[in-house]
């Protein structure tokens, strides 16, 4: 960092439209349209409108309202996305909240993540708590202590899930769509492997489920369930094979 005896860090502010080099700042604010050319390290970063960071971001809080693109890694205590954003590399945050859409080309590591809208991750997601309402796509491992997913906004897909507790709930479709088409099936979830202690699934298609207490709710299609303690399955779900271990 900088020499503490020198003058305090400056703020970075782009209002309107501008391009600035990266560097170390106290507060960084982009209102309008701004581009940061290089890595940026700051106490807080706030983007309203459209922002592009052509490098890594290391900050306390990063808030993007509107649209944002980060070409590098993001390291932050808290990350809030309102709108649409894309991060090209890995994200390490304590807390992450998405209202809208976030695409991460790397992996997400953190304490808690909440997504209302669409969260798409090309690598792994590893957090203690994960709450999703909407669409979730994870190409790698989705690992968390507690995972709660309320499906909606299109089909979700996860390669692998590893957790203590997993709840996948059917999204409820309301409004004129229902009036027009009658009862329609909500968005589903497709997973290759689920491994966890307490599992509750709805509208989920899985190849293999390993769990201790497994409850298969409505609308599931599962190839194999391996369970230790208890197992229950709703009438309208299909499970090809059930094995007690």
């Amino acid at each position, binding site marked *: 960092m900088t020499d503490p005896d020198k003058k305090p860090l400056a703020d970075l502010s782009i209002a309107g439209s501008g391009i600035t080099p990266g560097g170390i700042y106290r507060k960084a604010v982009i209102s309008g349209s701004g581009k940061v050319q290089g890595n940026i390290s700051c106490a807080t970063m706030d983007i309203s409108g459209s922002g592009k960071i052509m490098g890594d971001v290391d900050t306390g809080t990063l808030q993007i309202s509107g649209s944002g693109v980060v070409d590098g890694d993001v390291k932050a205590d808290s990350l809030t996305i309102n709108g649409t954003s894309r991060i090209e590399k890995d994200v390490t945050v304590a807390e992450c909240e998405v209202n809208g859409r976030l695409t991460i080309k790397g992996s997400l590591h953190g304490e808690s993540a909440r997504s209302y809208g669409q969260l798409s991750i090309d690598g792994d997601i*590893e957090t203690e708590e994960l709450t999703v309402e909407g669409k979730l796509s994870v190409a790698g491992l989705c690992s968390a*202590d507690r995972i709660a997913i309320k499906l909606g906004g299109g089909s979700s897909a996860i390669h692998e899930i590893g957790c*203590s507790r997993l709840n996948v709930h059917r999204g409820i479709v309301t409004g004129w769509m229902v009036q027009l088409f009658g009862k329609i099936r909500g968005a589903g979830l497709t997973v290759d492997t689920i491994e*966890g*202690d307490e599992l509750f699934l709805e509208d989920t298609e899985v190849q*293999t489920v*390993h769990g*201790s207490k497994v409850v298969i709710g409505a609308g599931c299609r599962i190839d194999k369930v391996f369970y230790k303690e208890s197992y229950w399955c709703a009438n309208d779900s299909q499970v090809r094979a059930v094995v007690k*271990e």
Partner: protein
Amino acid sequence: MIRTDDELITKKQLLEKTGISYGQLYRWKRKKLIPESWFIRKATYTGQETFFPKEKILNRVDQITALKDKLSLDELADRFSPLTMKRVTLSADEAVARHIVSASSVSYFLKAGHDGRSLHFPQLLALSVLDLLLSDGRMNAGESEELLQVLSTHGPDHFDRNSCLYFIRKMGVPAFFIVLDDTELYFDRKTHIVAQLQLQPYAEKLAAKLNGSIHKEDLPDV
């Protein structure tokens, strides 16, 4: 990385044998109590399965279950992870007195013009690898400087990434390099691989030594 001839155990067997749950296993992985490199993916007739090096994982699970009520998961992670040892410094004399590195490799280190007052983790690791290669005669003292240089410059950030140190010779000329991740390398006929060392086990062993904790895991022969 794991040697291919290590005895392996499946995830299911591990859970049965130790009585831990999937939730615990994944939590410990997230907290880096179990290194990523111990999760070995292999295709089997039932699909893809995860295996672990049997002795290492059973040992590690024993240690975690014994200590988890006394220490927090983060404290446990500190105990196992060489990455958190970055802040450790020892003087050269101390390191020799505590049998962490040998006096002879320290003397090469000092002769090469390094400062012996405060050795950081990467330097200690470099010295212990140097000890190993010098003691079995595969390397000579003149080559130590290159080894120390590559390890202290590029080693420290990559212990957790399956990094592997290569020591090759071609027509008697030595070269050292570090390869990240688990990759196959092919050389021409005249290049000899003198040593190929996975850094992570050494880093862990060294971390344990510095912590003063008892670590039963033996290092693989190279």
